[in-house]
């Protein structure tokens, strides 16, 4: 499923989350646009429906009771986390290949969303483990690999936050980004292999309760809704990351003109697009 990403819709309307901001002279502010508004409203509606289905209308499981309702939020969030990771790796590969700033910003934006959703997955996983096995954390293969994924993402974001010239920062971050997917795969394989040594199948099969009938429908509705939410967050986070870069570049152009002015020469406008600098 490709995430629907509305990128450059141009008309303006009040952003969904904020009030109708009165656009000042420099044009409408904020990262909203008509596309994100429609997507935002659709996502909100989807979430409401999914929540109703999961929490109210679907029956509770025979042996697990209401605890099964946690699955309806656990699975979609995990899907969003892994999709975020894949986009980060894809963005990093594309940046290394094409040197296009667009992909670099995409990698950064989706990495942060993936980090937030991975952390949520762990929290929800613990809320699941507590009633089911009476302990907050269990060394289950999937939970452990998710914890490692969170650490890998935190490492990636740490590299991206180090102040440096944007070309250097992007290249360093994209190499870590490219390594993200293989790392996740290798960690996942070794952790799953390690846990399977302990033949704790009893725990394993309770993780896959029999989903059937309208319970399945609730779950298979929740996943696309979660992906719409991911798309909405990604578009906004992408624009925010683009703004952050612009602010840095804006200061740089200012520095060039200041430097030339201080040197007593005319401030020739040397417009510099940092993104295209190839060293």
């Amino acid at each position, binding site marked *: 499923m490709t995430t629907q990403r509305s990128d450059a819709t141009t008309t303006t309307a009040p952003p969904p989350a904020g009030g109708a901001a009165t656009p000042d002279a420099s044009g409408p502010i904020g990262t909203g646009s008509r596309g994100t508004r429609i997507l935002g409203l659709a996502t909100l509606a989807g979430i409401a429906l999914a929540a109703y289905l999961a929490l109210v209308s679907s029956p509770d499981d025979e042996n697990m009771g209401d605890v099964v309702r946690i699955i309806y939020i656990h699975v979609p969030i995990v899907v969003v986390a892994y999709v975020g990771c894949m986009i980060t790796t894809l963005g990093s590969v594309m940046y290394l290949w094409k040197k296009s700033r667009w992909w670099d910003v995409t990698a950064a934006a989706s990495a942060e969303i993936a980090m937030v959703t991975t952390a949520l997955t762990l929290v929800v996983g613990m809320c699941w483990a507590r009633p089911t096995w009476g302990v907050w954390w269990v060394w289950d293969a999937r939970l452990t690999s998710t914890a490692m994924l969170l650490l890998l993402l935190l490492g990636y974001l740490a590299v991206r936050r180090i102040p440096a010239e944007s070309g250097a920062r992007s290249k360093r971050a994209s190499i870590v980004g490219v390594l993200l997917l293989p790392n996740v795969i290798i960690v996942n394989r070794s952790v799953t292999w390690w846990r399977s040594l302990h033949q704790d199948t009893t725990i394993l099969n309770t993780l896959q309760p029999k989903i059937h009938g309208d319970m399945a429908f609730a779950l298979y509705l929740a996943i696309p809704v979660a992906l719409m939410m991911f798309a909405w967050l990604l578009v906004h986070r992408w624009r925010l990351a683009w703004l952050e870069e612009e602010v840095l570049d804006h200061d740089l152009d200012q520095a060039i003109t200041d430097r030339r002015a201080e040197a007593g020469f005319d401030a020739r406008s040397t417009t510099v*697009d940092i993104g295209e600098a190839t060293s």
Partner: protein
Amino acid sequence: MEPVVHLRSAVSLLGRFPALAGVDLDVDPGEIVLLQGPNGAGKTTLLRTLAGLLPVVSGTATVLGHDLRTDARAVRRRVGLLGHATMLYDELTVADNVRFWSRAAKARPADAEAALTELGLDGRLRDVAVARLSAGQRRRASIAVMVARRPELWLLDEPHAGLDAATRDVVDDLVRRAAASGATVVVASHELERATALAGRSVTIVGGVIPGPDEADPDGETAPPDPSPEVARVP
């Protein structure tokens, strides 16, 4: 013949800071050019940009036939940069350092030995760890490494700093011989009387800028300080 260095309103970055904010410069083969300018004017940055170490983000910049914006790495092998940093491994001896860097540049072992003798490092100092050398000896070791690599473009940043008179003559002699044998030299220096005698002509950089002929400042009164008589800005 094709100039070794050809820059037109080149802008290069040091991290986020626009170290060079528009430099116009041409240097022909075999020339020795003196680069002057107040502290922080961008002399060191210009040398490092010419060496292909700093990304050029706008304007045109070609060195030894390579375009610095796309092919900076190819320049590095053919360039020798002598800066404030010694670029030596403190734990290794002088001989180890010269041998390592010359073999890295695929130079012949004989060049390493020749460089050591030329800089007077083949005697007692040969097997002394760089860490225990004096500043002057350390710089002579750096020069020996550069000589051993036989670069086509010499970029010297304050080569005379911290050297005794005898060694300065050795350095000047080396530079003249290199230029005579076809290498090109750009020297950044504060010691004007010695450097001006060495250089064929001089160029002045202020605030990361060497203006081209077309945009010399109209009102003139902000012309950079004119330290030595025959300052000629050759386009």
